[in-house]
């Protein structure tokens, strides 16, 4: 079973850290469809975090089709993260590598590039999904 770990210095919201950790575990095969996620109470207690935060993470995973609740309790993984997105990811990654090369030859430093990406991501996503 997955054991959640929080990054104390991360700016990523706590519930999202849990979501990302489940996804990462699915990607690398640490967990598989059919596996059970720890009970909300156990996660809240182990990490000393608000149970609502755990519920929010589990709800997010369910909405993304990665988990389902079963009668008698428990949250189980059903989805996988393999599939069409992985293929397109490789392509997108290649494009990004190309773009980074162009940015470097245009004289942007690593910090410039990070700042540009961050502000662009922010302005792109802020309009489409609520915070």
């Amino acid at each position: 079973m997955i054991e959640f770990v929080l990054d104390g210095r991360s700016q990523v919201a706590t519930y999202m850290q849990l979501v990302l950790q489940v996804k990462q575990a699915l990607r690398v095969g640490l967990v598989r469809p059919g596996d059970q996620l720890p009970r909300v109470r156990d996660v809240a207690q182990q990490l000393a975090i608000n149970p609502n935060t755990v519920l929010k993470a589990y709800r997010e995973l369910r909405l993304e089709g990665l988990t389902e609740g079963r009668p008698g309790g428990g949250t189980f993984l059903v989805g996988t993260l393999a599939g069409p997105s992985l293929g397109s990811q490789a392509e997108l990654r290649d494009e990004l590598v190309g773009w980074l090369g162009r940015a470097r030859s245009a004289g942007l430093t690593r910090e410039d590039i990070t700042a540009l990406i961050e502000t662009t991501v922010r302005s792109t996503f802020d309009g489409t999904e609520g915070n």
Partner: protein
Amino acid sequence: MTDDTALQVAGLGKRYGRTWALRDCSLRLPIGRIAALVGPNGAGKTTLLHLAVGLLRPDEGEARVFGRDPRAGREALADIGFVAQDTPLYRDFSAAELVKLGGKLNRTWDAALAHERLSRLDIPTGRAVGKLSGGQRAQVALALALAKRPRLLLLDEPIASLDPLARHEFMQTLMGAVSETDTTVLLSSHLLADLERACDFLIVLQKAHVQLSGDVDDLLARHRTLIGPRESEASALAGTFAVIRASRTDRQSTLLVRLPGAMPALAEGWRAQDVNLEDLVLAYLTAGSEARTQTQGELAAK
């Protein structure tokens, strides 16, 4: 008054002699929340908690717990659990004796639950609680408060005097216990770091006044830090943002602001950063009474 409210206070005030320990205090804590009550020493945190549990009588306004005056009698008090500052317990009594005592004094009492919690934590229930460590004593006090199966649990600085490990263990127990029930929690502290991941509701108290209260995610989404050239500050803000706290050098302005709604486009040369809970609390504490009148948080939405 809506029925999803655990604690509601309106125009609450308490005076000691000529000094108001709490004044014009209005807020609403919905059921199921875990709320942090933060503020410097002397801000009125303990007074607010004592008014909420009926240990004090207000000089102005009222406090209601699940719609009832906590001073009205046993019915209202049955819903409330309270762990006072420094977790006072009869030091010569053992935890087992205190659990038994609690059973005699309360209508609802789950002694088995208290024993189960204490044994899970390996706390010797036969030893006088005065001989236990501070962390263990705090756990005993928490187990006693939970044995009452309160719908609203108030804790006054429960972890302030504990070492970091005991603090973490206390928060673990509390979060685990809350997951099993629908208990609403209000806990005061001046140690924000320990509460950041535990609380989903925030109440900032300073100088006897509520500076800010509301859902943590909402509050964070509604505030930003804006950084930009000082010369264009006036035109960049142009009445869109309420500035909570400003710091300025000769060229740069750094402003913690409340957003009017969605994040508006920023003027040339300005950028916005998300705020965290600590930024927010510090800004409102620094702002003092100035920001108070503008920020009604939850209340305005009612």
